């Protein structure tokens, strides 16, 4: 019995050794053979070399990511038609940190010129991203900010994003009342930043009391369940704060329970939420709420920035901010309040599916503000 296992082990080693031997010189082989894998559709680029941009996305089960990937493809099409870039190399699948490291290694291996990464972990990719940077690849983290040397960030300011709706809620309550908070994944960097923002705002309003706080896991059904429980426990709730992904569920729970005192609700920038808003308006013409867009469009904006950097334009570092001073902070594109509700609902959401997230992608001309003229 044992002999056989040694045999297997020996076989494994032999295979590995042969493979290693065929591979030739260690290390040096990687960059030179890599371009073979890239799409070979560039017979003769008009002016110089065409750029290849890779995407690494470790999470697919959300409309946000779907819209993000689709708009990346659309925006890249513009540059492809202009002969500037090749087809995107997209690595997108539900995976863990190790899996995303593999995604990134494969992108490096394929010889891409720039990588847009939506990181699954704040620090876990650091060494791998540094490897990419050391190979001369431009690395941009989109949607979530990383504090990694030489890695650029493109995204909204998550803290400020949460402050907008928290401030609105506090003011609408007149600075006093009992509220509950429904948060996303505890420990997720975006959620941590957002909850920090909320806490900062609430500190200014000592008469607003937070009765409870629970996680809706950025999931509509969970948000609905959590809100139902809250409504049962606190029938006199004055308001609640929640964020995208769960606000629709929470709102549905309130509509279903129909409490005698309708709480002040915080919404999300999604057409389906605006539909609920519209539905509520028919019953209560004075109803109002707020929906702050969390735009998937920051990724295609990041793509535009990457292309401009690849074309050799100099980044104006004074325009950048964030933890490592390498963040392109994108302003929140849409905030829906009662003032512009009808306009957004009847125009933007008119031809869009209910799952559409209110979005904004900077044009190529707009991203020039980040570069030295």
């Amino acid at each position, binding site marked *: 019995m044992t002999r056989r296992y040694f045999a*297997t082990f020996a076989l494994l080693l032999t295979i590995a050794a042969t493979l290693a031997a065929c591979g030739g010189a*260690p*290390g040096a082989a990687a960059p030179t*053979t890599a371009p*073979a*894998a890239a799409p070979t559709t560039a017979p003769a680029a008009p002016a110089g070399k065409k750029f290849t941009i890779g995407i690494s996305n470790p999470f697919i089960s959300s409309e946000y990511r779907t819209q993000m990937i689709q708009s990346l493809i659309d925006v890249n099409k513009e540059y492809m038609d202009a002969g500037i870039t090749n087809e995107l190399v997209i690595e997108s699948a539900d995976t863990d940190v190790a899996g995303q*490291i*593999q995604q990134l290694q494969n992108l490096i291996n394929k010889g891409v010129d720039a990588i847009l990464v939506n990181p699954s972990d704040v*620090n876990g990719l650091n060494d791998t991203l540094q490897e990419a940077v050391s190979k001369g690849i431009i690395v941009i983290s989109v949607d979530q900010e990383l504090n990694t040397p030489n890695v650029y960030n493109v995204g909204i300011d998550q803290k400020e994003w949460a402050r907008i709706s928290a401030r609105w809620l506090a003011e609408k309550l007149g600075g006093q009342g009992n509220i509950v908070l429904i948060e996303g994944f505890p*420990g997720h960097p975006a959620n941590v930043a957002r909850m920090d923002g909320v806490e900062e705002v609430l500190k200014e309003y000592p008469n607003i009391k937070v009765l409870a706080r629970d996680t809706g896991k950025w999931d509509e059904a969970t948000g609905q369940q959590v809100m139902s429980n809250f409504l049962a426990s606190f029938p006199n709730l004055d308001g609640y704060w929640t964020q995208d992904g769960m606000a629709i569920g929470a709102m549905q729970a309130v509509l279903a329970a129909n409490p005698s005192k309708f709480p002040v609700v915080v919404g999300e920038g999604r057409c389906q939420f605006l539909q609920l808003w519209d539905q509520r308006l028919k019953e209560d013409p004075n109803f109002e709420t707020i929906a702050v867009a969390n735009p998937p469009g920051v990724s295609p904006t990041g793509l535009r920035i990457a292309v401009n950097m690849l074309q050799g334009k100099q980044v104006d570092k004074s325009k950048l901010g964030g933890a490592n001073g390498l963040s392109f902070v994108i302003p929140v594109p849409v905030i829906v309040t009662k003032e512009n509700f009808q306009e957004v609902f009847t125009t933007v959401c008119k031809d869009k599916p209910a799952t559409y997230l209110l979005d904004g992608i900077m044009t190529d001309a707009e991203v020039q503000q980040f570069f030295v003229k």
Partner: protein
Amino acid sequence: MRRSRWQDVTYRNPYLFALLLLIIALAVNILLQPNLVASATLNSNMRVFLPLILVAIGQAVVMIGGGIDISVGAIVSVVNALLATQIGINGDPGTATIMMGAALFVGMGAGAFNGLFVAYLRLQPIITTFASSFLFAGLALFILPNPGGGVPSLFTAFYRETILLGLPLALYVIALTLAAWALVRQTRYGRYLYAVGGKPDAAYETGVPVRAVQFSSYVVSGLMAALGGIAITLLTGSGNAQVGDPLTLSSITAAVIGGTPLSGGAGGIAGPIMGAVILGLVRNIISFANVETWWQTFVNAAIIVLALAMPGIINLVRRRNV
């Protein structure tokens, strides 16, 4: 029922199908990505596969003993959280080494906890370890509520970049585990494990300490999960209390592809090692075959389902021909 020759062969060599699959996957991968065999690329792949390989070995040992361990992913998370908080990015090598040693005991302790409930209190393994997984996951979250912390780059560089004689570090680790397993198989304990997994009643009647053997299999699984936790910490260089979650199901998948039946009493660890490598290679193949974005998850899952079902399909076809 008469067993076909294929069944006979696969019963005696449980890793055979996995080996076949591994060779196919390697061949396809090399066709699509010729530099896979360069030692740098081999290393970058193996260092990503190693955490799952280690966890899958532990899972296989439990499965051979007739149980299953749903808590391995959470144990990995606990170890990761512990190392990232206790060592720190600027920690000194001495503390780091001590903490890694301590992590192994934490893993074994977690395994002993599972073993106590399953072997001595005779609770269902699947339910027990499922419940304890929440306990461990909660513990990990308590130790490290927000992702952060880390280990010194000295250690991550060692894990990530060590290539000896053209072979990556991971292959030496695999060789060590296979050698250890070969030794275990020779001992009385090794035979007990298979006896307990195959027919616990019969084993009990012939004087095998069934409870102790079951108990120990969970301790081994906890130990391997701790090793997997150390590996993933060195790979990522940081802490995240949820880092191990996806490893639980992957480890079971790897063990099953590697010819370890869920019914226990058969299998080995060579198969699960190959199973874990196959799972990783499939991801590479999808990447380098330029599978369209929206199809990637589907293709990945389809290949895994096929790999899991293939031995059964072969048996079905062969039985009809006999």
